């Protein structure tokens, strides 16, 4: 115990001499970069434009006007429907994810303003069980879509997910149908939905609302696809080409509309909505007149 403590202290000292807090190493270009600079740049590497994963709060503040965000349904919590135990209990996995994220689930939904325009937004947290969609994620996304439909405001979903959550079985799969049914009504109401894909967006989330946007935007370098690369490699028994399923590949294949760096995302979304949305009252008078 004492030895352990000593070691820890030593490590702590080392931290002071080598200021890890001030400098970080880019996962992509391996350059040592000034942390403050990265943070000011919305966690995009100033040297190579690599987009680090960011937290839900960071994402919301990068898109939504300061002080305007109001969260929906933060109290919804997952239940262990199947009594699921693998190497760990599902309930333990949930508890751990909740403790680490200080939130109840893998998606945060709410309303706020983008340059003064009312929107409903959903943001995925990949750190929470891989952003997987179980009943609560499906329910929160569905409620957010319904709320946007009711308020007649644009919808933004920032996806980051490995897909449907295995631990809730076929009920997870059905969340793809539930969210898509709500999305159908939203589209039928003539409202704009901008889907923002971030690293990674695959499986059941990619194969439902993430690919149902009027305009689909991706962050640079994001992995996007139905099947994960490992599953594909196992199936076809060959190595995948470099850059396969990355945002740039999807743009080339016509599956996303544009790749937008994080630092320009808010302005791009705002500009697009300016074309696609004329406000709830104008829409109504347009319909009547």
């Amino acid at each position: 115990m004492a030895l352990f403590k000593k070691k820890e202290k030593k490590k702590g000292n080392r931290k002071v001499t080598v200021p890890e807090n001030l400098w970080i190493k880019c996962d992509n270009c391996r350059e040592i970069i000034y942390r403050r600079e990265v943070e000011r740049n919305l966690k995009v590497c100033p040297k190579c434009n690599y987009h680090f994963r960011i937290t839900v709060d960071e994402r919301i503040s990068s898109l939504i006007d300061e002080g305007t965000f109001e969260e929906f349904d933060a109290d919804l919590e997952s239940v262990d429907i199947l009594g699921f135990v693998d190497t760990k209990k599902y309930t333990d996995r949930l508890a751990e994810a909740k403790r680490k994220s200080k939130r109840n689930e893998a998606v945060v939904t709410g309303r706020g303003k983008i340059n003064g325009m009312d929107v409903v937004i959903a943001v995925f947290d990949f750190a929470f069980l891989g952003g997987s969609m179980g009943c609560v994620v499906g329910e929160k996304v569905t409620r957010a879509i319904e709320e946007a439909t009711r308020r007649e405001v644009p919808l933004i979903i920032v996806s980051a997910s490995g897909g449907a959550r295995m631990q809730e079985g076929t009920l997870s799969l059905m969340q793809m149908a539930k969210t898509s049914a709500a999305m159908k009504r939203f589209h039928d109401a003539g409202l704009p939905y901008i889907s923002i894909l971030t690293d990674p967006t695959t499986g059941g989330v990619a194969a439902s609302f993430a690919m149902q946007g009027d305009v689909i935007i991706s962050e640079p370098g994001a992995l996007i696809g139905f099947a994960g690369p490992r599953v594909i490699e196992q199936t076809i028994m060959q190595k995948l080409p470099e850059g396969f399923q990355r945002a740039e590949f999807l743009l080339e294949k016509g599956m996303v509309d544009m790749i937008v760096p994080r630092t320009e995302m808010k302005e791009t979304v705002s500009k697009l909505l300016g074309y696609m949305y004329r406000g709830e009252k104008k829409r109504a008078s347009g319909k009547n007149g």
Partner: protein
Amino acid sequence: MVGQYLEFERPIVELENRLEELRRRSEVEEGDFSKEIEKLEKKIETIKREVYGNLNRWQITQLARHPDRPYTLDYVKMIFSDFIEIHGDRLFRDDPSIVAGFGEIEGRKVVLVGQQKGRTTKDKLYRNFGMPHPEGYRKALRAMKLAEKFSLPVLTFVDTPGAYPGIGAEERGQAEAIARNIMEMAGLKTPIVVAIIGEGGSGGALALGVGDRILMMEYAIYSVISPEGCASILWKDAGKGETAAEIMKISARDLEKFGIVDVVVEEPEGGAHRNPEAAAENLKREILSALDELEGMKIEEIVNKRYEKYRKIGEFKGGGK
């Protein structure tokens, strides 16, 4: 006796072989075999009831994938009086892992869409093991839009290990194709009856699986990921499929309890492949009854009820539910 049997059926098969042998001997040899035959028949009945009456989810999975199990076009032959197949998505190519067309059941005209597996090696490759590419799903949607346009109900047969995970499939937007089908089916202005006849493999199954009445054959499975896939992720061991099948609760009876499946269609003892005509008869009866129910309803009511059906699927706590 069927051509291919499963490991858990071995005790039955052994007794059945003995019975056959006994019957043959009784024809050519002197002596009375009737008592022995009767005894053996009773024993077979008992052991069948034991085995087939207590199938676990892994055994059901094996039945759902049985090489002799009736596939979409087998049911079409047995159930439909007429079927005209249509081909192609008008964008890339025709995908033979999905069949679509106009058909007639007992005088009722429908549009049928279903995944199709192959029986022989050559046919399996041609049908890509029932694993569709995006163009298959786009053909399916094209057929469903025809149904909407001409006010015909849609009938889908789901039988796929999953959407194909390959390079071309990804390049051509597998996720987009599935996402579009699910969304369009949710709002399609014509009745949709879905029958899960074999394997309901994840999003690739759901892309033909949104509807007003969900029928499921008794020994079909429907899951978010294959048991082997689940096992290889959670235990890093695809061999633990049996455990995964149990824990994911993927049988028709399980899904009926969760409100995902409306009607469980009974299969003959030992599975549909042991008596395909009987299985087809049961399926046909349930299809007709579902079509009858929906026929009397206004289309707005049908679409609204479809919305409510999916809207309420899910279990959680908090949020006033």
